[in-house]
């Protein structure tokens, strides 16, 4: 039985453990107005070891395991150092699937994304959402079919954003 997808509950645990992170990917795109549903949340953590120690504690609370396509999840032992050692983790957790990426395609990671990130709340929890332009940049670079499908709507949303900012 799949857990109910509750991205708000996932970010609440991350924030409670003091993790600095940016939400990007399909969930962020949906929040901006894309109509493509997604079943995971993509986060980009700040890469210093103190932050990754908080992330490790949050992943323990979320009972995160390694997600395998079509198979049972694998146990996931981790600490700050091991989390820093791989640029991408695909996980399944208590409140749904969670992808952790230090450098999403087309970006240089947290420091790159945080400059233009937007502060929002998810279920009352304050989080940083990658900017629409950065989500588009990342999806263009990733270039998978599902990314390309999302792009026309995201570009139109960005054009609307830019038009609405003009005096």
């Amino acid at each position, binding site marked *: 039985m799949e857990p109910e*997808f509750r*991205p708000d509950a996932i970010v609440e645990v991350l924030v409670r453990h003091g993790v600095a992170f940016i939400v990007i990917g399909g*969930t962020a795109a949906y929040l901006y107005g894309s109509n493509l549903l997604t079943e995971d949340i993509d986060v980009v953590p700040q890469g210093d070891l103190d932050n990754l120690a908080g992330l490790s504690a949050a992943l323990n609370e979320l009972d995160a395991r390694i997600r395998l396509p079509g198979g049972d999840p694998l146990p996931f032992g981790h600490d700050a150092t091991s989390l820093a050692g791989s640029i991408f983790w695909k996980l399944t957790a208590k409140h749904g699937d969670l992808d952790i990426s230090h450098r999403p395609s087309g970006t240089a990671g947290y420091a790159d994304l945080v400059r233009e990130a937007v502060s929002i709340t998810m279920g009352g929890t304050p989080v940083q959402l990658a900017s629409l332009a950065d989500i588009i940049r990342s999806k263009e670079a990733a270039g998978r079919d599902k990314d390309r499908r999302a792009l*026309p709507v995201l570009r*139109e949303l960005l054009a*609307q954003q830019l038009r609405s900012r003009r005096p």
Partner: protein
Amino acid sequence: MREARKRGGLTQQQLAQRAGTTQSAIARLESGRTSPSLEDVQRLMRLAGFELLIELSPLDDSDRSQIERETPFEVRLSRLIASTNRMRQLRQEARRGA
């Protein structure tokens, strides 16, 4: 323009220096607060190391019609959670019925 600058590995300051303008002018252009001419955009993209290509494609209004304007993030979040979980229920029902 922002995409080209970032792909070119340039800061706004570096692009401004190449273009003989100020960092704040580049920031205004990238944020959409000023509307550059097509020639200006082409010039800046070349300075970032890229060529701007424009192509004609058939009009597809479906992208626009799919966009909901100014829906609060929390409302979108509730909709995502409800829709995703409903989709999963339907998928499980379909698997059981197959």
